[in-house]
């Protein structure tokens, strides 16, 4: 009996020690660990600190833009344009899915100001290759410390690998198994039992060029589309369903308005590469999700077929990365769905379908153009900053824009900006560069000092340039000041108007 007593006393002593450890760890080490292993905590804290009412949870679709986008902001920032009186926040993490979002949402304190939650619903996240992705281990690891347990317990779980930890090889086995074991059923006779068979058949048959030869690049992409989209969501087995269900339950508990933002997929490409059957599977899954979660009272924004092939940034892979135009369309769709929660706050800030022909950059850093690293606070015409050129910094801020996003029938460009220089510079030029695969490259340079050459004071530079007749065959137009000299020239308040 004595030995059991000793044991009990020692276990009690150990419990006391662990209690003290938790205090020491929380006080002196936890924050450093959080910043090192779970930096996403800062975005979650920001939601509370900034008293955000509406929050958007997204993955790379909310952090990616195309090089020629003038407005490089995210979807969530574009949504916030429509509700200027409401405080918007966002939590973004690449490769995230509903399981990750759920942990983020759980970590938001109950006394926060959050009223509405917009969750990205990515159809691909239901597919085996995403469920068993090799990125999953790192994602799961980043969540351990933010879970709602005592900090010392979370650190113990991190030390003892208490999360879904698997090697890349193990995960590959899992998704390959799923591709073979998950049966594909179709309403009319369909020759393939599963993804593996379909993929194999596509690889064998291939996508053919006009001359009948196999187009390897297109074939690889077609196979990839099959592996990514050819699945049928099993509401019992698919872990994402459980994750989204958990989010629904949490939103109900916290009394949040819940919006699922079903992202657009490249349906055009799926159809052209693989065919209607694949599109049917995609739509079947979409219908299932829309129906399931509408019944649960969730607002679903269905963007699945909203965006055409040209607006997808990645043409050789399956992603939900959209051009500025695509992001605007989604933002408009989501903001429309928010009207029912905030009817009086909606402001038609900018029509999503309207094509813009006027551009302005005050060089204060808020409007993102190319060459933002040239901004300096050494001198400014308006505000605090201007763009500095010269002395090995050859290019000023630059408007890089996709011509297909411009209105039709444009005839000329009117450019104006303020410039400051201390000496005459006959080499600095304002450049209009037009390029595209179906267009003969044009580089038009106009010496700035031929237009305005005042020294030591700000002076406006104005220029009109007629657009070439075949302008709409080109893809991109770039406008900037080029100064390859050692003589400094500052540029501010650049305005570009395309005119009819």
């Amino acid at each position: 009996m004595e030995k059991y007593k000793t044991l009990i006393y020692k276990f009690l002593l150990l419990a006391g020690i662990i209690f003290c450890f938790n205090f020491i760890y929380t006080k002196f080490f936890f924050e450093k660990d959080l910043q090192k292993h779970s930096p996403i905590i800062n975005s979650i804290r920001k939601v509370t600190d900034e008293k955000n009412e509406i929050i958007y949870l997204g993955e790379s679709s909310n952090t990616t833009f195309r090089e020629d986008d003038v407005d490089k902001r995210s979807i969530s920032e574009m949504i916030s344009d429509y509700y200027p009186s409401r405080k918007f926040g966002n939590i973004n993490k690449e490769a995230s899915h509903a399981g990750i979002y759920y942990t983020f949402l759980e970590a938001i304190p109950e006394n926060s100001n959050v009223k509405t939650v917009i969750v990205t619903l990515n159809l691909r996240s239901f597919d085996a290759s995403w469920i068993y992705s090799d990125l999953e281990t790192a994602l799961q690891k980043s969540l351990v410390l933010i879970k709602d347990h005592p900090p010392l317990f979370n650190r113990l779980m991190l030390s003892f690998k208490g999360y879904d930890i698997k090697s890349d090889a193990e995960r590959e086995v899992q998704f390959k198994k799923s591709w073979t074991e998950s049966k594909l059923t179709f309403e009319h006779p369909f020759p393939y039992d599963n993804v593996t068979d379909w993929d194999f058949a596509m690889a064998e048959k291939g996508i053919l060029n006009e001359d009948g030869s196999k187009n390897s690049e297109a074939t690889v992409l077609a196979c990839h589309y099959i592996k990514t989209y050819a699945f049928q969501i099993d509401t019992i087995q698919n872990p994402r369903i459980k994750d989204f269900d958990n989010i629904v339950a949490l939103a109900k508990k916290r009394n949040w308005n819940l919006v699922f933002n079903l992202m657009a997929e490249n349906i055009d490409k799926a159809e052209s590469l693989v065919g209607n059957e694949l599109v049917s599977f995609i739509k079947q899954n979409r219908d299932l999700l829309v129906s399931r979660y509408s019944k649960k009272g969730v607002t679903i924004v269905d963007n699945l077929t909203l965006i055409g092939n040209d607006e997808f940034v990645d043409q050789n892979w399956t992603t939900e990365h959209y051009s500025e135009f695509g992001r605007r369309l989604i933002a408009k769709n989501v903001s429309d769905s928010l009207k029912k929660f905030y009817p009086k706050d909606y402001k038609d800030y900018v029509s999503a379908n309207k094509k813009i022909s006027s551009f302005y950059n005050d060089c204060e850093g808020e409007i993102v153009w190319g060459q933002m690293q040239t901004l300096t606070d050494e001198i400014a015409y308006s505000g605090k900053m201007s763009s500095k050129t010269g002395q090995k910094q050859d290019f000023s801020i630059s408007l890089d824009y996709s011509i297909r996003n411009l209105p039709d029938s444009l005839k000329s460009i009117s450019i104006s900006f303020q410039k400051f220089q201390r000496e005459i510079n006959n080499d600095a030029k304002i450049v209009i560069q037009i390029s595209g695969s179906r267009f003969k490259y044009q580089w038009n340079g106009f010496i700035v000092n031929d237009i305005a050459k005042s020294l030591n004071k700000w002076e406006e530079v104005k220029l009109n340039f007629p657009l070439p007749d075949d302008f709409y065959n080109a893809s991109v137009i770039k406008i900037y000041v080029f100064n390859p000299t050692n003589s400094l020239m500052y540029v501010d308040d650049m305005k570009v108007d395309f005119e009819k």
Partner: protein
Amino acid sequence: MLFNSYEFLLFFPIVTLLFYVLPHKFRWFHLLIASCIFYMYFIPQYILILFATIIIDYVAGIWIEKSDDRKKKIYLVVSIISTCLVLFIFKYFDFFNQNMLALSHRFGFYYPEHTIKFILPIGLSFHTFQSLSYVIEVYKGNQKAEKHFGIYSLYVMFYPQLVTGPIERPQNLLVQLRQEKHFEYANFAAGLRLILFGLFTKMVIADNIAIYADQIYGDPMAYNSISVLKGLFFYSFQIYCDFFGYSTIAVGCAKVMGYNLMDNFKNPYLSKSIGEFWQRWHISLSTWFRDYVYFSLGGNRVKIHRWMINIMIIFVLSGLWHGANWTFVIWGFAHGFFYIVETMIIRMLKLRRSANETIAKIVDAFNVVKTFIIVSFIWILFRASDMHQVKLILKAIFRNIHVKDDFHVEPKTWLFLLLFIILDSFLFNTRFDSWANAKPVVVRWSLYSLLLFLIIVFSSVNNFPFIYFQF
């Protein structure tokens, strides 16, 4: 299942508690099931390979015991070949094919290219050797054949030492598995102490310095000579702390249930010669080779050149045991070479320990440093993936004197390593459990608390599997 996983944090107390709750007659079954679960956590189907080995040697043991001398030998040879065949197929088949293919290209004969590649079952070399040890001991008459299939299976599969040893002898473990164990506080406490120290060694020391060793071995030419030498130093401690840590946890897990496993390490980096190093490093393997191979070859009761050959055979086999790669073979050869050179120098110069204690201590210290440096350099062969990487490491050491790099080691890593080196020195020729037990209760519990805190808060968050799992 890994000792440093949260699954094991649940598995261990449940298995231990059930062990003491169950009557003695059910314990073998309980431990066997627990061991199967432990093993099947990796690749479940590979347990069939383990069972194949178990069945072969179980039957062989009984037949050897029953038979006359001539048949005995046949059964022994058949058993050894069958057991080694499993090892060969899974561990050496690919290596053999690659070399045969290279030879066929060089000498122009036909050898078919095989595309089959097997994933090496975890701990195959360990349990193969433990199984072989049983049949050899039965053959020699030192051990009675085990008739109880369950108990024999447990001898091969006993979970604490199943995947990376210590490689036990039947005289030690099999006998204990039949004994009734009662809860003894001293064993229980000693076992927990060893587990605590083992986890600290693996998770805080080995895994934290592994990052730096990997960094250097990943791209040696990008680093300055000094940084590469630091990388070598870190790897020497990584492999020691990794394997020593695992063995200590294994011994501790068994001790908690009252089973005594052999010690696998005794401060190897305090050895004064390569010979002594092998008496202190991976003791269960070196004694296995000594007892079953070296002595069979005649040991040192032969002429000098024959003795040298015997030594080289043992070390080359030991290298090959570790891995199917020429780097391991050369690693074993290098140890054999230095062992012979050291022994010959001592013999020829008739070196003896100085009578002057101070001089003797200085010489000892010099020898410890010398042995550590030799061993650390030979570890390059062990760690490198191929001979090309070995060349790169050596090139970086001797040529990158003026290369600037950004190799920065966190101060806490140095601090932990220093703490371990101090502890390891205190533990010279003793074990952590008995050393700690002799300390006053306040010192003892302060030490436990410190180790526990370091394990929870300062363990590496990166996943570094136990190095010896691959063997």
